[in-house]
């Protein structure tokens, strides 16, 4: 049983039985994290998300909540996005070293 796998391993091992994965909705505001995977049923939508800067390895930070707490303003690379809350669960991340 691996207790604390090094972050590099995470990229290759996405087996949920072994290690819990973090998703963006669990991350505190202002804490930069790295995108590991985008999940979700629609492949084309995921491909479009890469066009918006949401690609594997990119750094993402939740910046602010909008007044109704949804969507959430995020900093992805050099641009600001608003992302709906339901999507945050579909962005798997790891902390930055």
């Amino acid at each position, binding site marked *: 049983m691996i207790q604390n796998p090094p972050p590099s391993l995470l990229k290759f091992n996405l087996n949920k039985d072994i290690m819990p994965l973090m998703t963006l909705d669990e991350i505190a505001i202002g804490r930069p994290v790295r995108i590991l995977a985008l999940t979700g049923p629609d492949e084309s939508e995921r491909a*479009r998300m*890469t066009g918006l800067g949401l690609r594997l390895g990119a750094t993402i930070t939740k910046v602010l909540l909008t007044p*109704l707490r949804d969507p959430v303003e995020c900093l992805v690379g050099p641009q600001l996005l608003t992302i709906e809350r339901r999507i945050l669960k579909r962005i798997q991340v790891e902390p930055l070293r």
Partner: protein
Amino acid sequence: MSPRIVALAGRPNTGKTTLFNALTGMRQKVANFAGCTVEKAVGQVTVEREDFEVIDLPGTHSLLPETSDEKVAFNFLTDCINEGSDLLVLCVAEASNIENDLALAAGLKAAGYPIAVVVNMIDEARLNDVVVDPHALSEVLGAPVVLASARLGEGLGQITALLTAGTADGKLVKALDFRLASPARLRELQALSVLTAARAYAKAVRVPPRVLLPTLARSISVDRVVFHPLAGPLILTVTMFLLFQALFTGAKPLMDFLNSAFAAFSDILRARLPAGSLSDFICDGALPGLAAVVVFVPQIAILFTLIGILEHSGYLPRAGAMLDRALRPFGLDGKVFIPFLSGFACAIPGIMATRTISSEKRRIVAILLTPLMTCSARLPVYALIITAFVPETFRPLGLDGRGVVMAGMYAFGIVAALLLALALKWTRLYESAPPPITVLPPYRLPRLRELGRYVWSRCWHFISRAGQVILMVSVVLWALASYPRPPSDLGHPTSPAVRIEGSMLGMAGRAIEPLFRPLGWDWRVSVAVLSSLAAREVFVGTLGTLYAMDGSQRSPRGLERELHDAKKADGTPRYTLATAVGLLIFFAIALQCLSTVAIVRRETGSSAWPTAQFAFLFVLAYTLSFAAVRLLS
């Protein structure tokens, strides 16, 4: 030989349009992309006596087109190649966001299109300490690269030099047909181009390490206020209030002036021209039709100046994001904010603004509901009915009762739209998971020239698109209202009211009178409602004519009293308060505007939508109006 086509492609907010304006100057025109209604800005550039046709493509976010705008952009590129045109795609990238922007260039290159890259806003990048090496970039991308600032005119010479140079590689590559490409092929292409862009970025761009770019830091600190739980909604409310205030106080005098100018001009012409059909056609048919178009231009110009400032500064997408959550239970989202807002001036620009909505279903819903916003053409109708039938003594809570009713009509339109949106959730038009991500551009100061062009293009669209329909319908209605002519007995010229009564329109009004009698309308109101299909405010003019004893009476105050005091043959009032409330409800809901119907047809590409929309809103308006009349009388 046809001129070489230079297509400007890029993501929204990369400064494509600024570059387009800088390159072409005043030599531009607006046309339509083949087979659809998305407008195409075409400009001319002449370099060394060679002409180039420059086209500003709609913004695209990825190589997988989603919105109708994006589809048009890719289809245009495909068509150029298929027709064998000499094409060069100028891919515009924002220097401070270059990694994301380069993916399009890399993708088009990989898809076999001849490209060159313009790294725009290099001035802003310098402020951000971002350094871009054009040679390294060019090496990785395999295409010429120019650093430029379209705002400052920097690098324009190099860009024009690019145009004359031959296509980068002489080899003929079969370009990808975006119309036929499978989603899997496009996803593959997108993945590849993201990788290439990352490689180019790593090799050619130096960003200060671990520091937030100053432009971003500034935008985030502004957002802390704009998205503040208390200040945010307050700022939005105040902004909207000021916008409407400016719209009404600013546009009213101009509209009144234009109205009286047209009336005066018509009087002068009538005096000069020999009496007869021609003079009637010009003074009663064509001129009022023209006036009906022109009087809306000040409102549209003012509204779009303000919307333009909000949009160019970067506030509008944030306002949409703030409302997003609140609109979701109704099956709408923040993207309907701009169409609905525009709808308060006129539904036509509002419906055209729905093009940036990526979900096709949500776009249709927005198109169907935008006409429920209280457009400025409803105002004269509301004003007439309210002044005639809401007594001056009606002062709820000490407020001006007529103003309260007018404000109530605005609220009524919004509530009706939201309720209908809710109802549409149970139809096939409901899109449960619209695209969830919006780009927030950095805050920027709007520039006067860009703003001027934006406002001008909106006004021009209105004049050219809606104008045609309004003018045509006005002339047709005039003809229906003037023919057949009554047998005029010499010495007793017939009054306009008598003339309309005997005309085809009058006959039609009498024919439909039974249909509208349950609402308390007589043939005069029925005729006026028919004529208001040209533009809602024509209702006031037609009633004015029908109630005028002689042709000269134009005073609107007189008309209000006439309506209020009108009696039936048995001495009871011809119109009651119930009738008035019914009329207000009818005008709030019914799609009483043929120009809107025409625009919906163009924008949806089918006659089915506008037909269904017109029929449904008519039935709903009639039913609600009938219910109100029953309840009140």
